[in-house]
């Protein structure tokens, strides 16, 4: 069996972002394996440990993305494939670029993050499933293999459901799916020797970024002392009613 995790490298949510020439400048930011993709890596490792086979990590993005692929390899993935592209590519273009690479592996299933921490996109898993001609289960919180099928629990807009799906299929992650392991020191050493195959991006982005800005809303910062809770609550409600006019 082959379990594929599709990953990207993104700035850490705690990193301070700045704008340079109408674009986000990541030069000062800490870059990490996207935390939603980290669940995907962990899930493929658990599946491999339980059912045997191979855990493969497929990364998309600029050259630096190899760091995130190495992180996944240090967690325990067997080998990596890196589709290299330096610019911005929308999920449809990324899916086009990855579909061929993934099809060649003929995986049992594919797992990727439910949302990307850089483009805030939720579409990659679905676009990839369409490209591969297989079903998608999004926002997965539980996943079990049962012969030729998988049983999965996933979130809907309201509530959740259990589904059964014939494999192969694509799953996107949701918090709660698992607790990703930390790479161990021996894991990190081993990862250095693992194979990362480089593949050139083929495709054409369909969405172009014209401008990026950081618009932090100036907040009023009227903070009241709650030593007298009744008086503070009264004043807060007055402000919301008379000043903000939201009540």
């Amino acid at each position, binding site marked *: 069996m082959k379990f594929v995790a599709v990953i990207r490298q993104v700035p850490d*949510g705690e990193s301070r972002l700045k704008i340079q020439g109408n674009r986000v400048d990541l030069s000062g930011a800490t870059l990490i394996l996207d*935390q939603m993709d980290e669940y995907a890596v962990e899930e493929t490792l658990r599946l491999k440990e339980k059912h045997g086979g191979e855990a493969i990590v497929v990364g998309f993005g600029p050259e630096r993305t190899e760091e995130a692929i190495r992180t996944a390899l240090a967690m325990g993935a067997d080998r990596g494939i890196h589709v290299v592209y330096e610019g911005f590519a*929308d999920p449809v273009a990324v899916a086009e670029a990855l579909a061929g690479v993934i099809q060649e592996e003929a995986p049992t299933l594919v797992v990727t993050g439910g949302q990307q921490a850089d483009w*805030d996109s939720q*579409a990659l898993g679905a676009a990839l499933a369409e490209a591969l001609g297989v079903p998608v289960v999004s926002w997965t919180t539980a996943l079990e293999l049962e012969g030729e099928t998988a049983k999965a629990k996933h979130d809907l807009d309201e509530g959740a459901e259990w589904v059964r799906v014939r494999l192969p299929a694509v799953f996107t992650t949701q*918090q709660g799916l698992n607790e990703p392991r930390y790479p161990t020191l021996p894991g990190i050493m081993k990862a250095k020797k693992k194979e990362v195959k480089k593949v050139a991006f083929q495709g054409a982005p*369909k969405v172009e970024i014209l401008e990026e800005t950081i*618009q932090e809303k100036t907040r009023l910062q009227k*903070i009241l002392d709650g030593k007298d809770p009744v008086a503070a609550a009264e004043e807060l409600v007055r402000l919301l009613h008379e000043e903000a006019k939201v009540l």
Partner: protein
Amino acid sequence: MVLVVLDHDGNKLRKGSLEALTRARALAEALGSKVVGVLLAEEKAPAEEALAYVETLYTATLGPYTAEKWAAGVLAAARQVGAQAVVAPSSRQSRTYLGRVAYALKAGLLEDTLESTVEGGAVVATRYAYLNRVTQKVRAALPVVLTVKPNTTPLAEPLPTRGEVKTLEVPSVPTVEVLERLQEEKKGVSLTEADIVVTGGRGMGSAEAFRLVEELAALLGGAVGATRAVVDAGWRPYSEQVGQTGKTVQPSLYIALGVSGAVQHLAGMNKSKYIVAVNKDPEAPIFKHADYGIVGDVHQVVPALIEAVKRLKD
């Protein structure tokens, strides 16, 4: 043609559908085109209501929702009318099945947009990125698939005349089998569409204390939210989680009770019009992002707030 996907709860159109309609009409006008609607149902759908808003409405009843079936339905309608643009309210489900649709149409996918216009035959839209911290202006040539972020757009008015229904043939597609729906008890308004959201954090202290959060939310006609810590502790369901791995909300008023203000949480609510924080720690990061706040114990302040709101309403 501009195809608008009308989302609903079985009985009524969701508010987001009326926002999507407004956007679809503006795009159609700029493109010299017309709006047609598609209404997909598990069992029943508010077709009568929908016909007040579009001249032509394609409908299909598809049984339990799956991303594949909904994608096939939208695709069938898009191909039938030769859609240059597909416009839909943004939700987790729509952002899933429209990912499939965008790929199938080889379309530019513009997710969760705040605004959209036509410039030189292409669609230009703004949206948030980097966990809601950056505003992106993006452009895609036609065809496009565009989702509309809730609470960003005026609601559409009904048309003077009633539209006509056309039944849509939807091909069957390989998909998942739904084994069991775990429906949550519906309480009040939906979190992403609510105009007021009251969120409790770990500082609420216990699952029981959330009755204060529920009471305040109900009193204000708002929805209850929760932080990741609270969801992880099992005090509240995932569907109420606001933040990076939960839902993104943009209400007029966001009230954070006992919430410290971690970056991951801010990512889900930092675009709210007004933010109110109540926390006993004056150094809590949430206060830096608040318009109004009270430094105090939620167990004393929230009951007092409830009473103060009741007095205001009287």
